[in-house]
């Protein structure tokens, strides 16, 4: 098991370098840079600034200096925000994480419950209704869903705030603060849950159907175990194995920020600044953030493998 993890870690190193090179090239080859986007500059001033930011240096030199910076643990300095990239990301990353984590927990719970129930009686009325709802939820364009929810719950009914993370000027702390944030989170979380739960429910249902068809489930029934035990202990535990790997893949998503949802709900998340920095060609932020996601993807893959190995004695005890 440990050698397995170590081997995977070793394999991730060239992948990381490849990713860093790819990310750098993609951004370096994009037309326009941080200076080009400023129409107020005279050509002379623009040239001075490009030299100041090192944007006039050859590609390889820029890559190498970025890389060596990274290897020293320095993510660089945001051109647009004039603060270290790590500080900048720190400001936004955690609210994205909060939003993503809460919706992740909710839609996993929901999908598991619904998917299992649907699989226990496949093609029953519950399954059919769930299938229909799942397809419906999967077929909504995100922004449309956001706007609809705002119109109903925030404007027409006035139950929930339109957007943001805290009430204006609020100095609440402790429980009041948590409550305030929770109230603001309801709609964006609802959106994300609706968007994500569909696919996962289908997956859970399929996996559960597979598991229910296993011989060992029949054995469990033949032993006279209560149906609840048969389903939860025998079938679900097997159905969870492929799902656990899926959980690992969610890792980068936790930090990527839901761009459209965050934007429309004014959630101060990282998806929000992502597009802004892109429009401004704030490369240090963009590259670091993209690389962060790449690292998280690799770690997520690794985690997925390790988690499923841990969950499955056939791999764990090989």
């Amino acid at each position: 098991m440990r050698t397995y993890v170590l081997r995977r870690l070793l394999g991730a190193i060239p992948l990381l370098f490849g990713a860093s090179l790819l990310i750098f090239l993609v951004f370096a080859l994009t037309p326009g840079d941080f200076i080009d986007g400023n129409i107020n500059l005279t050509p002379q001033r623009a040239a001075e600034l490009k030299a100041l930011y090192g944007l006039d240096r050859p590609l390889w030199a820029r890559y190498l200096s970025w890389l060596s910076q990274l290897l020293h643990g320095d993510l660089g300095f945001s051109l647009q925000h004039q603060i270290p990239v790590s500080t900048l990301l720190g400001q936004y990353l955690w609210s994205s994480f909060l939003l993503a984590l809460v919706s992740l927990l909710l839609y996993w719970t929901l999908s598991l419950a619904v998917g299992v129930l649907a699989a226990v009686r496949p093609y029953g009325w519950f399954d059919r209704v769930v299938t229909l709802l799942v397809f419906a939820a999967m077929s909504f364009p995100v922004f449309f869903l956001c706007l609809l929810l705002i119109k109903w719950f925030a404007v027409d009914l006035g139950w929930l705030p339109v957007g943001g993370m805290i009430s204006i000027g609020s100095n609440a702390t402790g429980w009041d603060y948590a409550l305030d944030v929770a109230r603001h989170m309801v709609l964006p979380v609802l959106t994300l849950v609706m968007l994500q739960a569909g696919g996962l429910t289908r997956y859970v249902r399929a996996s559960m159907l597979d598991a229910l068809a296993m011989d060992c489930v029949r054995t469990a029934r033949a032993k006279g175990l209560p149906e609840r035990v048969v389903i939860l202990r025998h079938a679900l535990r097997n159905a969870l194995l492929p799902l656990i790997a899926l959980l690992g893949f969610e890792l980068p998503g936790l930090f990527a920020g839901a761009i459209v949802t965050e934007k429309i709900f004014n959630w101060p998340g990282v998806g929000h600044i992502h597009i802004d920095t892109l429009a401004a060609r704030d490369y240090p932020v963009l590259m670091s953030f993209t690389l962060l996601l790449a690292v998280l993807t690799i770690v997520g893959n690794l985690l997925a493998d390790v988690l499923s190995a841990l969950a499955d004695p056939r791999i764990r005890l090989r």
Partner: protein
Amino acid sequence: MSVLSLRLPWRRGQAELVSLAAVGRTPWQQALARLWRNRPAILALLFLALMVIACVAGPWLLPWDLETTDALAANHPPGAGHWLGTDFLGRDILTRLLHAGRISLAVGLVSVVLSVVLGYVLGALAGYAGGWVDGAIMRLADLLMTIPSLPLLIILGALLSELQVAPEQRIYLVMLMLSLLGWTNLARIIRGQVQSLRSRDFMLATEVLGLPLWRRLLVHLLPNTIPTLIVVATTGVASAILNESYLSYLGLGVVPPTPSWGNMMDTANSFVDFQRRPWLWMPPGLAIFATVIAINVLGDGLRDALDPRLQARSAR
């Protein structure tokens, strides 16, 4: 033991029955018959066919021109002349809707075709060749998986305009980019399938029979991966259509004045239009919604029909 046998005894019985009852039918005919019995899937297919016909033929039959603007007829609600009303430039919504349908559907198809070709070829190659070829292709797939697609799309979109691509065609190139990133999923699936098919007895048999390589690949190996391909491709079209609407929302998709369902729905972004002019966003919204549902239902039906054991493992 029969490869198709499921583990439950009654299932095994049924699998046997299926094969005995359907005498004289090719596997494709069998699949069609199974599909035919799936009423929702057939309804979905019918709906899609109607949608395609309407989008292809509709704009010719309607009296309105796609691009001619008419400031006097701006923002008319649905009525006798303009059945679905007009937009802020006085263009007929129905005409634009159907025209947009052509584009959205074409975009969906094209991007899927591209990513499917890439994913299929690379996946099959990796699965069949094994060794360093497999290693290289799969590492490339790993690498692409680490790159989040959105920034890439934005950047590639910008690159495209640098290359002087005509705006009507740009969306296809954007979708090409999506394909360049999106093939990995299918490649993995196909690779796995090819690997397992390769070690199946009938592939060993082709070797023992001394069949030439091309025949082993084209007649024996690859046709058996087609069902998976069809299912993945179908659901791919649905997500491509949603992607297009998403990209158009971000200003990266189909650019006006060329209409697409995605950029038409953009109007919903204006609170006033959202509140007061539902005819602007409802038709494209419903079109996307219904089409995507129909494709998903059809995909589900195809999955059941083509390979009852192939599970709903589509990428979310």
